[in-house]
Structure formats: structure tokens, C-alpha cells
């Protein structure tokens, strides 16, 4: 099945060991960004090079891989990465959240609750949540070391002062295990509560910035907020036009040239499974 001329899962074993060491450290210190010697991957930065390296380092022959991009299994990025591992590792792949042992994701957490034993691998563009207020890496590291996160609340304060509510809709900063401030990658704010005490292991890989961080299973992940302005997810009056779900994250899709639009679930597997609960996909 798998292509010849490559090591299992593309990366050489020494690189995988190096990445696994970074992963172990990341799991031991939840939320802490561990630098690692990111390798060149056969796709450009911004397409998931960090996530791919993490997946390549943890995947085994018995794993079943699912890859989603903005929740969907059928977008270019998701299809290419799934095929990449099907060819270089010869592993089984799936589009069903419940059947996958490893899920690599870009910008979403599946709607279906994850199980203990599953691993969620995030592709991260900008791992440093403090970057917007401090461009110098030496300074942000110092702020992390001293847990100097007061300035982060300043952003929330400014939002509430100006708009009456926090307007950050994605990449909403979280504090992991009461210690490190962490960027959850650009997942919608709606997904933030799914990070908290998740039974699944959550790994984050940033290829361009060469950072790995992790949230071990059942770890507290708290979204920043104020006592009198508690964190809340957005609610819409729309339902999915396909499956009728009112609890999932929706994509707005323009369907004709007259401005007609529909809202459908961004998580394709969730939408499909609601339409055909018993169906087994090939």
C-alpha cells in the first residue's frame, strides 16, 4: 500500500524521536511551548507542517487517522494530508470521529465528544498568545516565566469598554492548568469549552514557529474572562440547513448569484451522522 523509498510516516526515526521528546516535555508541562527542531516538510508553512510532524511522530501501524480542515473531511488540505499518511505510512483512514484514533485538525474541534485514548493534533499558525502585545520573543518568554498575564486581560477590558462584550471570536486565549497562557489555535470560541477536561490527549504543533505544546487528558483549560463578564460562547438563531442541528458551528454558504445563502454544519462528519445515524462509510 504505502509508497516505497520513504521511512514509515515520511519522517526519519531520529527526527521522530526528537519530536517525541518535545511532546513528552509538552505533556509534562501543560500549555508550555516547547521549542523543537522543525523539519522541512513537503508542503508550505501554513498548510499544517507542525501538525503533520506531530502526527508522523505518534502514528503507528494500527492507528486510524482522520484529518479535518475547518471541520470538513473533504477540503483540499484535509484530503492531501490524509492521502499523505495513507501513502507514506499505509495506515487506515476514516472520516468518522468515533472511529479515529488520531485526528489532525485545522481550526476546529469535532462536535462529537472525544473519547479517552483518542489524540487530537492541532495545526497552529501562531503559538504565542502574547504576540499581539509583545513582539519580542525574549520578552514573551519572560512574561510566561513570571506568569505576567495581566496585560492579556487588558485586551478583554478594551473590548468590553468599547463594545460591551469580548469580541474575540476565534483563537480565544486560555489558561492551562492554572498556569500557562495558551493559544488554542484559531478554533472558534464555541469550541473553547471542549478543550476543558477533555478525555482526549490534545497536541499542538506549529511548524513555522517550531513550537509544540500540549493539553493532557482531563486538564483544566480556562478561557480568560472577568468575574462580572464570564466567558460565554456565541449563540445563533440559525440551524443547519442540512441536518437541522442548532448546537453546532455553522458555515455560511452562498448558494446562488442573488445573494441567497444557507448555513450548514462545518463538521461534515457530525452533519452526516445526524442524517444517516446507521450508515457505515466505505
Amino acid at each position: 500500500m504505502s509508497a516505497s523509498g520513504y521511512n514509515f510516516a515520511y519522517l526519519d526515526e531520529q527526527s521522530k524521536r526528537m519530536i517525541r521528546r518535545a511532546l513528552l516535555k509538552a505533556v509534562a508541562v501543560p500549555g508550555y511551548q516547547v521549542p523543537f527542531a522543525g523539519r522541512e516538510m513537503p508542503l508550505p508553512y501554513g498548510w499544517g507542517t507542525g501538525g503533520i510532524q506531530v502526527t508522523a511522530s505518534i502514528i503507528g501501524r494500527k492507528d486510524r487517522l482522520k484529518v479535518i480542515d475547518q471541520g470538513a473531511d473533504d477540503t483540499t488540505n484535509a484530503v492531501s494530508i490524509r492521502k499523505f499518511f495513507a501513502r507514506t505510512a499505509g495506515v487506515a483512514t476514516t472520516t468518522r470521529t468515533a472511529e479515529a484514533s488520531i485526528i489532525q485538525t485545522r481550526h476546529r474541534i469535532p462536535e462529537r465528544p472525544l473519547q479517552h485514548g483518542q489524540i487530537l493534533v492541532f495545526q497552529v499558525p501562531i503559538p504565542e498568545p502574547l504576540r499581539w502585545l509583545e513582539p519580542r520573543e525574549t520578552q514573551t518568554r519572560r512574561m510566561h516565566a513570571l506568569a505576567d498575564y495581566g496585560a492579556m486581560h487588558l485586551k478583554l477590558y478594551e473590548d468590553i469598554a468599547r463594545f460591551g462584550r469580548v469580541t474575540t471570536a476565534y483563537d480565544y486565549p486560555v489558561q492551562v492548568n492554572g498556569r500557562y497562557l495558551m493559544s488554542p489555535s484559531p478554533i472558534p470560541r464555541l469550541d473553547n469549552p471542549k478543550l476543558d477536561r477533555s478525555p482526549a490527549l490534545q497536541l499542538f504543533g506549529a511548524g513555522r514557529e517550531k513550537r509544540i505544546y500540549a493539553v493532557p487528558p482531563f486538564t483544566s483549560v480556562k478561557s480568560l474572562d472577568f468575574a462580572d463578564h464570564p466567558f460565554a460562547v456565541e449563540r445563533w438563531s440559525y440551524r443547519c440547513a442540512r441536518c437541522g442541528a442548532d448546537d453546532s458551528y455553522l458555515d455560511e454558504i452562498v448558494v446562488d448569484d442573488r445573494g441567497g445563502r444557507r448555513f450548514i454544519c462545518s463538521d461534515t462528519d457530525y452533519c452526516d451522522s445526524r442524517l444517516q445515524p446507521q450508515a457505515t462509510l466505505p
Partner: protein
Amino acid sequence: MTTSVDSPLLTVEGLTKRFGTRMACRDIEFSLWPGEVVGVVGESGSGKTTLLGCIAGHVTPTAGRVWFETREGDKVDLAALSESDRRRRLGHDMGFVHQNPRDGLRLDVSAGGNIGEPLMRAGMRHYGAIRGLAAEWLGRVEIDAARIDESPRRFSGGMQQRLQIARNLVTNPRLVLMDEPTGGLDVSVQAKLLDLIRQLVADLGLAVILVTHDLGVARLLAHRLMVMQDGRIVETGLTDQVLDDPHEPYTQLLVSSVLPL
């Protein structure tokens, strides 16, 4: 709270700072009691700002000790404290007012946010309470509370400086370091600012180390004066005494150099 007026808040012993072969501070010794305002005067390059930096923790002294009495009544050596210990032990007991308000403010954040930030750093997580305190402090430094959401960029120099003072005082520090707080302001604005500082210092019982080269400012604000020249303290005493009856030749020169109006 076991601090008392019997023991100094800050004691500097043998403080020396060398930049290469240049001595910026030589063997500085002095004590500061709670509620006391000490002025440090001297010409540019005499080591005033370096001395302030050593106390504030921006500069690591080459030798010497800076004892600070914490709220718990322990004495800690600021010169030997790591940054994390410094934050843990001192909390927000020390403020620093920069000469240029742009160095001490975040210009892309609203006035209220600027005052609120130290509170959030101190762990305050109640938006209403933070905003209330910010509005209260804007009033205390005589800025219209309606401008709470405006950027300090749109404030005048004097207002920016008052905002910086509010930002420093909102966490109730016991010691405030001021580096030329009225520098670069025109005289009428200076006068109002000096009035405000004098009133706040008296109301809050703050200890202040005030670095200035303006003897008029020193006379108005400082209880005690230290005259620095070439990294040394050459004369020290009550402000009036030093300015009216200077003993050292350098102090005499300094005092006689002020242009009379």
C-alpha cells in the same frame, strides 16, 4: 501590617554601579522613611537616574545592598532579588513615574485600560470594579471621567503625565520613584502637576524618591535633598537647609546657577 515609622522603608548601603570603566554611582548610602519625599538633584550625568534604576530593578548594581521593608515587615535586598522573587515579595509596592509619559503608558490602549492594567496584573478580575477604580483615579488626577475610553495619544502632555501618575498609584504603592516628572512641560502645567503630586503624596502617605535637575521642583516637593556629583552624594540635608545654606562648593555652584526671575 507591622511597618512602623521607626524603621526605614528603604536603606541603601554602599551602592556602586560601574558601566565599563565609568562609575555611574559610587558608594551611595541613604535611608528613606515611610511618607518621606527625598529629592535627588545634580547635573545631567551625575548618576541620578542610574541610582533610581538600581532601586527600581531596571539596573543591576555592581556592588552594594538595597534593603526594602516589605508589608510583612521583612527586609529584602532588592539588589540580590530575582525578578520573580521581586514580584512575589514586593507585589505592587513600588511605582515608577517616567519623565516621558510615553515610556510609562500604553498609548494604543484607552485611559481606563492604562489605569486598570496594574490592577489586572495584581490579579483583579472584576471588570466593574476595575472600571470604577479607573474612573475614580481619573477624577483624582483631574482628568474628565468622560474621557475614560479615549486613547492617551489624544491627551495633552500634562494630562498624559497625570494619567501615568494615576496608573502608578492605583495599586496603593508605598514607594514611588519619579524621574523628572515635570520635565518637558510648560511652567503653568508644571505648577498644577506639582500641586497634584504634593497633595497625593500627603493624602496617601507615600514615600517618594524624586530625581530632578530643577531645584524649584525639589524645593516644592522634597523634605530632604541629596546632591549628587560624579556618582557621589556630595551633600545631604533638609531641603531648605541645602538650598539656602549650601556647604559644598558644588552645591553652592548649583544653587547659584539657577536663573532668578
